[in-house]
């Protein structure tokens, strides 16, 4: 296991002096997709914002690739870490497409083609962005982040604009990018179903880590997760409860198989 990012004793408060993190510690494994989940207002987006810029005033330290993030200059940091904070209202669409076009004009023609094709944006390329679906604008923002990052891509809650089917496709694409471009992804979501596509899951609550580990193992802790205000994906919720009643002996994600096990 290679750790790419380490957060040690992070302390951060909002402008109104309310503390969001008091002593947060976590690590992120290289070349993995990590989900950071938690109820609304638990600090998921704030955490990504603190990671997205290396100039935030905070206590504690954030280490990336063995170096405190404040020791990187802005250019180095931007090449290393890119963030997607979905916002279809403020997006400067023209600028975004121009940036991607610049990659095409330069050395990354093949990379651009591949990413746009995988995200099903290639046929949209010459169409006016004002006619794009919100999910396509979000995918364009993800494309830009992947093109510009050489190490870590942060993605904040895409489920607001993308359907379940689109989300599944995006995760399959991100998995391909890990190998192809040596990337690490950190993704926030309130929807724990998304964690099933990922390698590692953190659940935040009251500014600290409530649970951490392999998503399937973490999701078995149904009581703790429910208390944190989160919904457990249906098949896991059902399996865990059936296990408690000794009706099955392992978590089953396939509904057909579960039905066959219950009613032989």
């Amino acid at each position, binding site marked *: 296991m290679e750790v790419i990012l380490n957060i040690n004793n992070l302390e951060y408060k909002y402008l109104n002096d309310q503390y969001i993190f008091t002593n947060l510690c976590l690590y992120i494994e290289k070349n993995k997709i990590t989900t950071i989940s938690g109820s609304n207002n638990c600090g998921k987006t704030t955490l990504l914002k603190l990671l997205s810029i290396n100039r935030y005033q905070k206590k504690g330290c954030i280490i990336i690739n063995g170096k405190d993030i404040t020791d990187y200059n802005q250019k180095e940091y931007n090449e290393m870490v890119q963030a997607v904070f979905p916002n279809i209202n403020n997006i400067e669409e023209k600028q975004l497409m121009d940036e991607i076009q610049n990659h095409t004009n330069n050395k990354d023609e093949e990379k651009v083609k591949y990413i746009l094709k995988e995200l099903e944006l290639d046929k949209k390329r010459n169409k006016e962005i004002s006619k794009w679906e919100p999910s396509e604008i979000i995918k364009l923002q993800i494309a830009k982040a992947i093109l510009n990052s050489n190490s870590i891509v942060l993605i904040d809650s895409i489920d607001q604009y993308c359907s*379940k089917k689109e989300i599944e496709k995006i995760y399959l694409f991100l998995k391909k990018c890990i190998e192809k471009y040596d990337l690490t992804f950190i993704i926030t979501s309130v929807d724990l179903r998304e964690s099933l596509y990922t390698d590692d899951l953190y659940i935040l609550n009251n500014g600290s880590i409530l649970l951490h580990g392999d998503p399937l193992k973490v999701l078995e802790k149904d009581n703790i997760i429910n208390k944190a*205000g989160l919904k457990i994906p*249906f098949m896991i919720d059902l399996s865990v409860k059936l296990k408690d009643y000794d*009706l099955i002996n392992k978590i089953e994600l396939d509904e057909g198989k579960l039905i066959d096990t219950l*009613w032989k």
Partner: protein
Amino acid sequence: MEIKENAMKYTIKNHKMNGIVTNHPNDLISLMKSFSTETVEKTEIIPEIMEIKNSYKNVYECFRYTIYNKQLFPKDENKKILDALRIVGLKEDILSLGLMDISSSEKKQLQIALALLSNPDTIILVEPFKSMDFQNEKLMTFLFQKIVEKFKKTIIIITEDLESVLKNDNHIIIFKNDKFIIEGTKEEIIKNIELLRKHKVILPEIIEFIYLAKKRKNVRIDYSYDVRDLIKDIYKHV
């Protein structure tokens, strides 16, 4: 009110919560826009009503801009703003906060408060429950019920997720690929599960599971929306 559009006919129940389920929400929003201009009723569409721009200095400025932009000219502007905040359950001190400093659920409450400023008859919300935790989803549903019952508004929720509107006492209308499929209460919708499956409407996972158990193993379990109820039924029938 009855809506007719290209040989489709369906009903929006006045002073009730209506849930429209579609796999093409954007097409439906365009349809709603045309319907809102054609009728005499005042309609506010969220998030179309306003783009919450981070360039506003604070929440108060956001209210002032909306009042000015919609030419509302209230007698007492501050009272109007505080009333709207109170209805959606936001505290007065949010007014001084920047839009970057409020949470996503507060932003949704704020959008509804801004919609209420013009005292609309109908409020159309697009995917109001997305990115929301369990607790906030309950709070938001409670808020919609209050707006419907106490303030006699009509609420229309447009969503891709049938599950999010099946849980509550909504009038439900289902479209697939822009074609009207069915409308009714949740009980009437579930009675027609074969029709929904025929049109490949995505069912809530719990409903799909019960349907498959009934179909494949002829198990007699009732359709429920809560895993705990389902477990009791399974325990009885295995």
